[in-house]
């Protein structure tokens, strides 16, 4: 590819720092806070996972980074520092440049992200011409190369395919080709494998790992599936009802989850190993339902479902506190029960 890679030693470039981000919706007169004082950082070349259930605010957090929020959403406060500048305060023209060259985005459903009446080659070429200022001819060559790079066989033929002629996995590869063709320093991937079969998912995760290794791009991966996060990420942030409840290196979270929600979430994951006949095959679960954002309890939003709930939970301010090293949790009472 034509452009030189960003030097991996340059720590400033490609890092992302979200501080005090708060995103709210006004729905039928009431205000719903979807992202609540979120602090997140991912250093250059690292992969951060955002995991949580539906309505936890992970997608809104991710979309804030490129200001691709629904109309009804308002960023009430916070900063999103990428490459040393606050993306939230950039003028539109500057924002457009960053979206074009520095940040690539892949969404869950490649079919709705691609134009159904345009050949995939044309869509790639268009992106390359507009974003990198290449000529039509250069862009066309580069498009084939980009498709080949994401593991699409017979790329020179495939550029003439329409999205509906490709399988789901191939379409998602095309999305990765478009997202990474400009060699962005940051890749945002929102549930990129959720609509795919498990074997295709594994291939897309392998592709993601290869692209990361080759380009050194920083990645933020959103998923509801802790398994997917564990396969791909260095650090993980667990979200619940708009808050980050725990943040730590992936191994730390898996081995020693501190927040009761994280513990519940990990315990809820069914194993592929069948339980033995004598074993109690019931999974331990989190009681109750995920909360309505319009009717959150005071203090910690997890308290109605928490096994360790106590009166003081209504006073909790949901600030991440360091437990040890890089391990942070929003529960101030973690030391009062046996985490192991």
């Amino acid at each position, binding site marked *: 590819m034509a452009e030189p890679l960003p030097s991996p030693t340059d720590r400033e470039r490609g890092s992302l720092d979200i501080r005090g981000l708060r995103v709210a919706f006004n729905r039928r007169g009431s205000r719903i806070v979807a992202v609540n004082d979120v602090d997140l950082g991912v250093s250059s070349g690292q992969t951060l996972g955002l995991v949580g259930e539906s309505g936890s605010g992970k997608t809104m957090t991710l979309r804030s980074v490129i200001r691709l929020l629904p109309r009804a959403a308002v960023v009430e406060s916070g900063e999103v520092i990428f490459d040393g500048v606050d993306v939230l305060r950039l003028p539109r023209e500057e924002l457009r440049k960053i979206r074009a060259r520095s940040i690539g985005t892949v969404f869950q459903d490649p079919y709705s992200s691609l134009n159904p009446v345009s050949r995939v080659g044309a869509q790639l070429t268009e992106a390359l011409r507009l974003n990198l200022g290449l000529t039509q001819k250069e862009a066309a060559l580069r498009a084939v190369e980009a498709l080949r790079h994401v593991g699409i066989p017979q790329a020179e033929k495939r550029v003439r395919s329409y999205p509906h002629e490709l399988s789901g996995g191939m379409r998602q590869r095309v999305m990765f080709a478009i997202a990474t063709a400009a060699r962005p320093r940051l890749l945002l991937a929102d549930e990129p494998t959720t609509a795919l079969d498990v074997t295709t998912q594994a*291939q897309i995760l392998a592709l993601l790992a290869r692209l990361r290794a080759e380009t050194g791009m920083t990645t933020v991966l959103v998923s509801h599936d802790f398994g997917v996060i564990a396969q791909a990420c260095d650090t993980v942030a667990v979200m619940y009802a708009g808050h980050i409840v725990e943040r730590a290196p992936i191994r730390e979270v898996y081995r020693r989850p501190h927040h009761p929600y994280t513990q519940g979430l990990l315990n809820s994951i069914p194993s592929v190993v069948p339980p033995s006949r004598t074993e109690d095959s019931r999974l*331990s679960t989190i009681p109750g339902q995920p909360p309505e954002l319009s009717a959150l309890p005071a203090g910690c939003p997890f308290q109605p479902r928490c096994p360790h709930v106590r009166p003081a939970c209504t006073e909790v301010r949901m600030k991440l506190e360091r437990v040890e090293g890089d391990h942070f949790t929003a529960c101030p009472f973690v030391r009062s029960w046996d985490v192991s």
Partner: protein
Amino acid sequence: MSPDVTGHDFARARDGQGPLLTVKGLCKEFALRRSAADWVNRSKAERVAAVQDLSFTLNRGETLGIAGESGSGKTTAVRCLIRLVEPDAGDITFAGIDVRVASGRDLRDVRRRMQMVFQDPYASLNPRMRTGDAIVEAGRVHHRPGSENADSFQADLLELVNLPKSVARKRPHELSGGQRQRIAIARALAVGPEILIADEALSALDVSVQAQLLNLFQDLKRELGLTMIFVAHQLSIIAQTADQVAIMYRGKVVEQGPVADIFSHPQDPYTRALLAAHPQPDPDQRLAVQFVDDAMRAGSESARTDSADAGGVP
């Protein structure tokens, strides 16, 4: 719950000898849409075998898991069992009834005794009907004992799926996804089925809700002596629920047997790839992805490769 709400037929059912459901050589083909070229050439539409030679026996109280990826034929297979899709060939014997030739009262009986729960409860529940009424209606259609008294009937069924009575007065849109799926289960149970078929019934749910419903299915199976068929692309769901499993790939069963054996010693390369591709929550078990990559490169015969898939596209 009072036993007569759902338990009515079990006493009779338990008297039966042999397996509850026997399927032999089930086949179903679909014709693909004819292209313009096919019209011009007067050639017949291409056919695709959705289910090829599926056989299994299911004893009372057992759970069969049917696993496979999209397009593997698993949903078509279970739809054939109650003839929502007419099979092309094969034998289906349910509690002594030849399902293939059943009609009228017999077919209604088969469909009552084998109930399905689908992936999307929002699509399978009437949005304008209160959930309690939906449950009672199902019971009354099949003249279930107890269904004359709507209040107690719906209360018993809601209790069975661990929902508060107040839910009966709500409409589907007022409920969460997990609650809606519980209603779909309650409605299926309202007609007193012996086999409950869950077709990706847990796929659209959040992890914590999925775990609750997995437990609910286990409880129902034990309390009501239900026989179950779980259709899922998620192998972990099969692992947690099934006694025996059939792994389907493009209409064919590639491997079949006790779930413990197959999951611990998979023989077919496709089963192996499927198991290896399951993303483990343990970050130190990242081998899986590598395995699939290797399996692809080695071009193992039935390991589905994304590229082979696209290669088939003109």
